[in-house]
């Protein structure tokens, strides 16, 4: 089993090490994921229903209230 994991590890490790253009791409992926998942998600994208309410019952009540009080 340890041998299998070692082979899988070496497969990925050597694959990444021998890349040419891939290194540039991975750097780009890392920067992008940092911007998307850390900066943008953290600063601008809280899930409104998740953060404002504690339970699904409260969320349902809020949406039902919203649906039955149309904006005039």
């Amino acid at each position, binding site marked *: 089993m340890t041998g299998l994991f070692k082979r899988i590890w070496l497969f990925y490790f050597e694959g990444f090490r021998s890349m040419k253009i891939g290194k540039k791409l991975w750097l780009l992926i890392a920067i992008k994921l940092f911007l998307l998942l850390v900066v*943008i998600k953290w600063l601008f994208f809280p899930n409104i229903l998740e953060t404002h309410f504690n339970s699904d019952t409260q969320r349902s009540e809020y949406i039902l209230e919203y649906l039955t009080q149309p904006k005039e």
Partner: protein
Amino acid sequence: MEHIDMLVDWSRAQFALTALYHWLFVPLTLGLTFIVAIMETIYVKTGDEWWKKTTKFWMTVLAINFAIGLATGIIMEFEFGTNWSNYSWIVGDIFGAPLAIEGLMAFFMESTFFAVMFFGWDKVSKKMHLLSTWLVAIGSNLSALWILVANGWMQHPMGMRFNPDTARNEMQNFWDVLFNPNAVNKFLHTVSSSYVLASLFVIGVSAWYLLKRREVKFAKRSIIVAASFGLLASLYSISTGDQSAYQVAQTQPMKLAAMEGLYKGENRAGIVAFGILNPKKKPGDDHDPFLMKVEIPGALSFLGYHDLQAFVPGVDDLLYGNEKHQIAAIQKKIDEGKIAVAALKAYKEAKKSGNKQRAKAALERFRAHEKYLGYGYLKKPEDAVPNIALTFYSFHTMVGLGTWFLILLILTLYYTMINEIEKKRWVLYAALWSIPLAYVAHEMGWIVAEVGRQPWAIQDLLPVGMAASNLASTSVMITFWLFAILFTGLLIAEVKIMTTQIKNGPEEH
């Protein structure tokens, strides 16, 4: 009220921006994976090292596109939670299940078979490597299936029931959702047109090599594979486009009317081959809808109903009703929708006060009118009409370009087969300049699909105005510009890395 309109407009603009940018990366991946798999199959069959070199070059191009496009779709998932939280709650598990399957499939495919495809050339057998390449192609296309199933459901909701206690749509039949005709056609049309885009990309890049008199053998081989694949995909795309139009006619007639700028319905309705809309035209007035047009008689009736004589309702028929053809006016649907909203409210209040009898009666009333629920939120009938000019011009640009691509694919395949392609420099230039046109056609397709179904987030059930979260419109505006900058940066990076790689040629990857 003005704040809400601005908020909805900015939220829609932001979602449109992220979706359109995301779609700049996806179709090339969907198509190029198959082209690469075909090339590698030829290599494994023939043992010719040239094909291995050709496969590896296009695989590198695929890797660049994949890496830069990776996770650009994730912003849309953030937006569901932030900008469209009401919508996300109401769609419930209908959206959750396909997206979860897509996420799992993408993760397993990308972390295993993608790795074997890129790292495994000298580490696994030829056949294992080929299998991995095919699985990447099939897996990435299946990923698209789940997203398009979710989109198809929004265009034509089925297989669910609205639960008035939780305010969520609950899945009643998974197979109805999966095999929703709208979703099936949308998937087939989207992937087949993605294959056309990828083929045009490969042909365009190969044409550039031929214009530069470089990599001639490589370029011709690439054109043969891409043009053959693209031609088959193009013909299939025409057939799936026809099926999509048929579906639209049955389930979204207002979208069909907008696609053709048809205000007054008619039997033997024609398709506008070329036309300029009259900007003064409004629904219900007597202005001519077109300043000029060239029409193919009967074609729209045939496209929409597979009958040359069929009546195709126009915007005015759908808006104000048409007794002869038993089409209800939107105002009638608005009235029914308001009854559904009032019944839902009465049900909620009766439940709260513990009056079971009143709750039961209110629920029955709601069920009788719920198919028009969304209309209850429209302020006036005209709100049910999408932006006709944008839908019309996008549709006609897409169809026009699709026709041009078919001609181009035939020309490139023919001249390459008779070994004349290098002499036909105008064909090579046309192929090169058709790369951006393929992207334009794809984006136009999405505009037709999404703008044409407005004002609905979920067809007939939830207008976009009710789907949006109550946020400050300025924060949505700020994030709109943030994304515009981020995505433009990614696009510039992609084009720069890609062009450098192409200039280096197949020897260097």
